[in-house]
């Protein structure tokens, strides 16, 4: 019988390496650019937004209020934490990788009295960044959303599909993880975050890269 209390007898677990299938890919450069964003912490949160005590406790744990309006994103004062509305009782939190464990504990402590679920999903998704002149047109080749700024303005998010992959799309009001490219041109400023499951990363990347190539001037 296995002695679970004898931790000496257990093999040391491998060090987690947050590298998605896109990690080995060189960014696509040009007028429309594609790259993988560095891995951030991700927590999926479920709970009843109709319960004021739940939403208050979640806000206490996060230091910011949950977005309750569909297809919206909330961000903390420093802009390092994003909370996406995923559904009527579901949110996704993006936060600095090193804060993930402590934030998870905070949530579980504050939300203990309520029916809820806080699940770390850091390794379940990766986030790609598509930016540049044709970014919206490139996405439109595989995504049925109306991406016109009048309908999908900066700051909006939506879950949809790109080709056959489920994606979470977000057009950042401002994305401080950039800096690789200097955009002097206002037409060049469209930026989309595309969150996709790891197992679909190659598929989405190849699809995007092919369309970027096809739409290049």
């Amino acid at each position, binding site marked *: 019988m296995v002695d679970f209390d004898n931790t000496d007898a257990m093999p040391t677990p491998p060090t987690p390496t947050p590298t998605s299938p896109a990690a080995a890919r060189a960014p696509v450069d040009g007028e429309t650019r594609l790259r993988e964003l560095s891995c951030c912490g991700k927590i999926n949160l479920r709970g009843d937004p109709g319960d004021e005590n739940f939403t208050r406790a979640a806000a206490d744990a996060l230091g910011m209020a949950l977005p309750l309006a*569909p*297809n919206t994103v909330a961000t903390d004062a420093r802009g390092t934490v994003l909370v996406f509305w*995923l*559904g*009527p009782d*579901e949110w996704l939190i993006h936060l600095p990788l090193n804060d993930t464990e402590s934030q998870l504990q905070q949530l579980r402590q504050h939300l203990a009295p309520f029916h809820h679920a806080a699940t770390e999903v850091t390794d379940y998704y990766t986030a790609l960044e598509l930016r540049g002149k044709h970014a919206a047109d490139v996405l439109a080749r595989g995504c*049925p*959303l109306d991406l016109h700024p009048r309908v999908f303005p900066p700051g909006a998010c*939506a*879950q*949809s*599909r790109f080709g056959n992959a*489920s*994606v979470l799309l977000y057009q950042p009001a401002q994305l401080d993880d950039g800096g690789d490219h200097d955009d002097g041109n206002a037409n060049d400023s469209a930026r989309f975050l595309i969150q996709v499951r790891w197992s679909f990363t190659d598929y989405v990347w190849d699809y995007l890269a092919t369309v970027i190539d096809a739409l290049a001037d």
Partner: protein
Amino acid sequence: MLLIKCPWCGTRDMSEFSYHGEAHLLRPPAPAEVDDAQWGAYLFARKNPKGLHRERWMHAHGCRRWFNVLRDTRDDRIYATYRPGDSPPDVDAGDDNGENNGDNNPGNPT
């Protein structure tokens, strides 16, 4: 191609959704007390109307919630979408109202 209004996310392309057949079927609360014909009807018998149909859809690529759609099978016109637990709205789709046809399901609430 249809545009379907998810009760939570708003109007989206049909390709974001999956279809799951007739809505408001009720599993017999005591399966052991119904006979084979009744159980078979619950499992397999569906209205398949030519006309208004209350049916289940799921926002598979979106919020992944289930909801109900009131659709006219003759022209695919969607009269309403509504959340589970909500009552289907009253709709007059003209003659040949499919909701009155072939209701042979013992588990189907009226």
